[in-house]
């Protein structure tokens, strides 16, 4: 009993330590990854472009739901002109970065873990080491960088599409005044205070999600079961990290 508790503690700290050492190795290879921009582009394609469809579709639906729900509540107070403010602030501050990051973890993070885990189990990483190519620099660094770059862009697309989703429902279907929708939004949303803070949030989420994903892949037990577990851990851990960090970042920023 006591022994298993001790083993659990040692494992937890070992995991934490390995992930930090891993991170420092990878970061030391980031400048090299910038120079090999073809690799970076290929990774941007697989984490960014391939996530685009799910981000745009969910952004539009989230915006439409916000439009509907916001209208129902706001019209009780006769304040349905504030729908634009409600939709845009919700998206730009919270839902854009957070939901986009959760989708990113499910769509791109799990794929990264599985890919690197499979590379490990088929001994491709070991083969690279044999050829004196550092897999952390060559394989992992461009993926981490691509994740950090893609996440803010995806979150911005999510928010922008969501605002138009809210506009579609609010102005198009429910008859909120077009001019009031945009003008109230513009006077209430501050670029530095709201939009930039949302982008900073999504940068942090992109970093954390990709870090967890590539580390879990690299740290996976190289069996089919181990890769499956690692993929699950990526999605669970990065979702928890996103929500926890979101609270801390919101408390600091707003």
């Amino acid at each position, binding site marked *: 009993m006591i022994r298993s508790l001790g083993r659990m503690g040692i494992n937890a700290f070992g995991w934490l330590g390995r992930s930090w050492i891993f991170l420092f190795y990878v970061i030391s290879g980031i400048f090299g990854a910038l120079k090999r921009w*073809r690799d970076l*582009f*290929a990774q*941007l*394609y697989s984490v*960014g*472009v391939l996530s*685009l469809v799910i981000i745009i579709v969910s952004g539009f639906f989230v915006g439409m739901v916000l439009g509907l729900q916001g209208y129902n509540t706001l019209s009780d*107070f006769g*304040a349905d002109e504030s729908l634009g403010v409600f939709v*845009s602030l919700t998206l*730009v501050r919270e839902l854009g970065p957070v939901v986009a990051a959760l989708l990113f973890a499910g769509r791109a993070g799990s794929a990264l873990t599985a890919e690197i885990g499979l590379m490990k189990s088929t001994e491709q990483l070991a083969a690279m080491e044999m050829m004196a190519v550092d897999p952390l620099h060559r394989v992992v660094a461009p993926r981490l960088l691509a994740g950090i770059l*893609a996440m*803010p*862009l*995806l979150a*911005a*697309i999510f*928010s*922008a*599409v969501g*605002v138009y989703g809210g506009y579609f429902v609010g102005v198009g279907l429910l008859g909120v005044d077009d001019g009031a929708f*945009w003008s109230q*939004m*513009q*006077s209430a*949303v*501050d*670029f530095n205070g*709201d*939009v930039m803070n949302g*982008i900073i949030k999504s940068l942090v989420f992109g970093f954390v999600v990709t870090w967890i994903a590539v580390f879990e892949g690299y740290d996976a037990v190289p069996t089919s079961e181990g890769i499956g577990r690692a993929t699950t851990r990526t999605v669970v851990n990065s979702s928890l990290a996103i929500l926890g960090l979101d609270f801390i970042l919101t408390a600091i920023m707003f």
Partner: protein
Amino acid sequence: MIHSKAVETTVGVFIALGLAAILVLALKVSNMNMFDADDGYTIIANFDNIGGLKVRSPVKMSGVLVGRVSDISYDDETYEAVAEITIDPKYAKIPEDSTANIYTAGLLGEQYISLDAGGAEDYLADGGQIEITQSAVVLEQVIGQVMFDKASGDDEE
């Protein structure tokens, strides 16, 4: 692996789309092209009570946004609230004897300062002060006034 030219093109489209989204958020959603609070000129108005006025509250003339409240402090010599207003340099011709009132936009809306132009020949410059001000209407005071009037009216009958 997909052909690298196709990858580069789609990644280019992705990045362009992302930057366009940030641009939409900047210009359409948050209206960044509005004047920067730093490059206007500052005038001061003292109020007995500023009600719910906040930093960044709008300042309007004839309903047009001409500036924003840039700072609010309390003067413990005169026991008045001091509102510092930054005016867009486009609107440089505000007569010196203009008056400042605090109004509420709508029944539950935000409070803003409305400047009413006076008739003086000279215009307010940086650091100038608006002498004639009217405080925010505090709902409790109005209700109290009405009840007081009603009560005193009943006495006379």
